[in-house]
């Protein structure tokens, strides 16, 4: 038996979330002494397979380099994974994917086609068949035991350290070609361009809420601070809904889950749906003019102040 990890990538480079997922797989592998394989599905994506082969602990990389896999639709990738698991030469006990948009879109489809449950966003491995995952925006943790032969799992990356990305020497093996599943046509993909680090990978995050007032303030007040700290910018749902920043800035129950070394919450009240996405940060700073704002209940350092004076002062002092 082996464990299959689904690589997250954009056909060009391997996404860091794959490393945390390999870590989760290693936890399971240490209990079963099984091998870890990584499946790279995409178009013209051999470089990704080569990067996956260098991850420490990976025994084999399966590469499906086919034009129809390039758009990363759930339909085509679920068909690929199911074919690999049911017709391939290896029996897989676990299929793990990072809980990214792609993973969350694809793995439930895989599970239904295999007639097994899917376990979402695990944060810990207790046993080969027993995992811990959050309920209720992380206010409750549940320990679940699966009775299925194949365990289909998405992994919350903040729950596992990244595996070492260099030093491994896995073999790369082409998969037997898969059928061209009928799939939606990708009309466009608009990805935010930014010179700042990605939210999921940033060591420091400066995050803004409705208190910023508008999009211009958001950039002019928080931008310079983020630049000085080499930080990513995040936001609350209220700030996104009001159009201050694009949707992919959202941190929380229904946005990104982050756990940086330092999270600076500015003009954010601290609704639990927001806390769900950032409360595992190592150090939390809150700047809010309302001394009773709930964010102060979880902040390591709270500053009761008007953000329009405090933040520029902070930036200037760095």
């Amino acid at each position, binding site marked *: 038996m082996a464990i299959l990890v689904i690589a997250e990538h954009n056909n060009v480079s391997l996404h860091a979330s794959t490393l945390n997922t390999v870590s989760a797989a290693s936890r399971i592998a240490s209990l079963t002494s099984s091998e870890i394989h990584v499946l790279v599905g995409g178009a013209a994506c051999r470089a990704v397979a080569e990067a996956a082969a260098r991850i420490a602990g990976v025994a084999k990389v399966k590469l499906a380099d086919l034009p129809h896999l390039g758009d990363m639709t759930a339909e085509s990738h679920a068909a690929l994974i199911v074919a690999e698991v049911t017709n391939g030469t290896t029996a897989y006990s676990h299929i793990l994917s990072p809980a990214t948009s792609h993973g969350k*879109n694809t793995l439930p489809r895989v*599970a239904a086609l295999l007639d097994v449950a899917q376990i*979402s966003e695990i944060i810990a491995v207790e046993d080969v068949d027993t995992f811990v995952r959050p309920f209720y925006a992380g206010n*409750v943790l549940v320990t679940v035991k699966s*009775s299925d032969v194949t365990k289909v799992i998405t992994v919350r990356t903040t729950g596992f350290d990244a595996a070492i990305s260099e030093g491994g020497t896995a073999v790369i093996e082409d998969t037997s070609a898969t059928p061209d599943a009928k799939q939606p046509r*990708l009309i466009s993909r608009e990805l935010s361009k930014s010179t700042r680090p990605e939210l999921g990978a940033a060591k420091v995050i400066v995050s803004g809420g409705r208190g910023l007032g508008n999009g211009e303030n958001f950039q002019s007040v928080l931008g310079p601070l983020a630049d000085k700290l080499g930080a990513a910018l995040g936001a609350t749902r209220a700030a996104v809904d009001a159009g201050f920043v694009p949707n*992919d800035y959202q941190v929380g129950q229904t946005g990104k889950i982050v756990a940086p070394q330092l999270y600076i919450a500015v003009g954010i009240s601290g609704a639990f749906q927001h806390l769900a996405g950032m409360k595992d940060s190592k150090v939390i700073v809150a700047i809010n003019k309302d001394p009773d704002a709930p964010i102060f209940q*979880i*902040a390591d350092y709270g500053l009761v102040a008007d953000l329009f004076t405090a933040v520029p002062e902070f930036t200037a*002092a760095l």
Partner: protein
Amino acid sequence: MKIVVPVKRVIDYNVKVRVKADHSGVDVSNVKMSMNPFDEIAVEEAVRIKEAGNADEVIVVSCGVASCQETLRSALALGADRAIIVETDVELQPLAVAKLLAAICHKEKPQLVICGKQAIDDDANQTGQMLAALMGWGQATCASKITLNENVATVTREIDGGLETLEFPLPAVISADLRLNAPRYATLPNIMKAKKKPLETINPGALGVDVAPRLRTLKFSEPPKRGAGIKVADVAQLIDKLKHEAKVL
């Protein structure tokens, strides 16, 4: 065409949930229950599609205990035409719900299913994708915009780095994200009207679906609490603490 909208009864999003002392579950006694917020957005979208003349009927479906009827009545008050409850006391997991919904889809033959992207209780984000797989249909999760043109749907989805737009033929499953629309409030006359709309009760056995859970929950627990830290007097003290105490600057 018909649109099916699955709706789930969950603890209201404003309630701070508590784990029972014996770790066997979450305390639901005297707790306010509501329709899952994402499902409310799905109902609103389906009703808007019907109001725009692009659908004939909106059918809401809930799977679970008898009190899910209240949730269905709220969906009817938002403008859905009729309701189906698949009634069972068994704890339903996403795969079981997807199978029940697939059975309903075989029966009702909708052209479109719009569901919420996740339920705010188990935060699973699975049922829509599973249903699409079981039906062999296309899917678009986390939709922030839906355009229908004859038998083709164009959907903008919220994804990790931004947005993407997909086009696919119906039938299909679309799951609603928060920014798809802002649901209306049910008016009193519509709440009254909803009481008279048809509500059918079906049991899972009649649909030939095995709903036995695949996952056993061993334990519910609360995550370690993060205590409040300190309030700093000014920016200078904040920087000093971050540098010398937390050592993150």
